[in-house]
């Protein structure tokens, strides 16, 4: 299991992050380090804070205390001590360093598949229309949708939309890719095509943090699995250890038992 060292510093460094919605604590002093090229899977019961943690990493949501750094730079705050929020312009720049794929795809409905990918390339990366189109076509090819470049989201299946969603995120060449339950809204027969794309990105060395309920995929594709419960990290380790039969963590055992009972 790759541990951040001075020679291999953490690309993503989440340190003691806490967050409450009103009186409900959703994140309790969560710490997590991810090194370059790692694929970290976050599992846990619903309401355990997995999605919130992911949304804090690109500051779609703020947090009350702690720090989140990508490549050594604080994501949401100019000054951690004073907790001075970055300007919206700065935040936009920071967010462009991370890619995110959503459970409900969230494609822009008025733009074609290629148009969805080109928007960020043109407006954020400053590419020309021709360059952006070439990059969009390259990534659509990678996700097996070269022939759908000019289709609108409404004309695509869920699996196809999600593959466009992945292409939109990776085309920006993010340092880290965040995947938020990206197969949860898909019909079972469409899950495979999406996971295949993720697997090929992992093979390319893309650093990823994913929240998923696909345990078999998590076991095969992750370098590390983090189990969250009640807003905190309850267990973390290599898949064989976390998903193994002899893990010494009562909550994790009962989560996995319940999970197996409902999925197999």
């Amino acid at each position, binding site marked *: 299991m790759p541990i951040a060292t001075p020679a291999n510093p953490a690309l993503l460094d989440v340190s003691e992050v806490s967050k409450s919605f009103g009186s409900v604590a959703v994140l309790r002093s969560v710490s997590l380090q991810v090194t370059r090229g790692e694929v970290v899977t976050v599992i846990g019961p619903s309401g355990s804070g997995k999605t919130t943690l992911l949304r804090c990493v*690109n500051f*779609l949501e703020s947090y009350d205390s702690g720090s989140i750094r990508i490549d050594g730079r604080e994501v949401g705050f100019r000054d951690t001590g004073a907790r001075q929020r970055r300007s*919206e*312009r700065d935040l*936009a*720049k920071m*967010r*462009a*360093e*991370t*890619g*995110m794929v*959503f459970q*409900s*795809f*969230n*494609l*822009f*409905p*008025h733009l074609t598949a290629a148009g969805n990918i080109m*928007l*960020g390339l043109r*407006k*954020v990366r400053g590419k020309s229309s021709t360059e952006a189109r070439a990059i969009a076509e390259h990534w659509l090819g990678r996700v097996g949708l070269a022939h759908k470049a000019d289709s*609108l989201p*409404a004309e695509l299946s869920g699996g196809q939309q999600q593959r466009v969603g992945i292409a*939109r*995120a990776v085309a*920006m060449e993010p340092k880290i890719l965040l995947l938020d339950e990206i197969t949860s809204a898909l019909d079972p027969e469409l899950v495979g095509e999406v996971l295949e794309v993720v697997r090929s990105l992992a093979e390319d060395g893309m650093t990823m943090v994913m929240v998923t309920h696909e345990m078999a995929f998590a076991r095969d594709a992750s370098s590390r699995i983090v189990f969250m419960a009640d807003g905190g990290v309850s267990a973390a380790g290599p898949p064989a250890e976390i998903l193994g039969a002899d893990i010494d963590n009562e909550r994790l055992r009962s989560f996995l038992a319940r999970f197996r009972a409902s999925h197999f």
Partner: protein
Amino acid sequence: MGYTLNFNLIWRHFDKLWGGLLLSLELAVISIAIGILIGLLLAVWYVSAGRAVRTVIAAYVEFIRNVPLILLVYLVFYGLPTVVDIAYSAQTSFIATLSLYSGAYLVEVFRSGLEAVPRGQLDAGKAIGLTPWQRLVHVRLPTMLRITLPALSNTFLSLFKDTSVASVISVPELTYGAQWINFNTFRIVEVYLVVTAMYLLTGYALLFALRLVERRFRAAH
């Protein structure tokens, strides 16, 4: 019951009606164009501003919605120049009134449209690093316009009919043309039959054209 229909006098003065119809359309088009600008600006301002601004915008909308259009027309044309030192033609005054009038309705249309844009799309815009302005222009407005297009065509159709109110300050639009012919020929039944048909046919034609535009947009999205 000795009344026999005689349309000859109407046809002789038909240029008054034809010119009136064109002017009615012109008034409606100019007013909705300005109204859309007012509506967009205030709606975007409303959803991004604080309480004070919201209150002012809401007051404008409520004022316009609760005062009859004819009264607004009188207020702007007769009232305002007596209080403030300005002068304008009846036509300019009416365009200003109708623009403010449609603007108030469109603020509401656009505001609810902006709020109906799914959160997820805005998150996606944030996630790829778009600035707030870019998210507004490239994500929020296109989706909002798609959502509000049917309401926009309905507003335009209402405005076209509302141009008839301009007759009360002698703007020579279609209804004024009808009144002129009535006063000069006393063919009241004939002239209003013809004018009703003209409003009806133009309204249907506009509706048909606007629905075509809407369908194209829906097919393209």
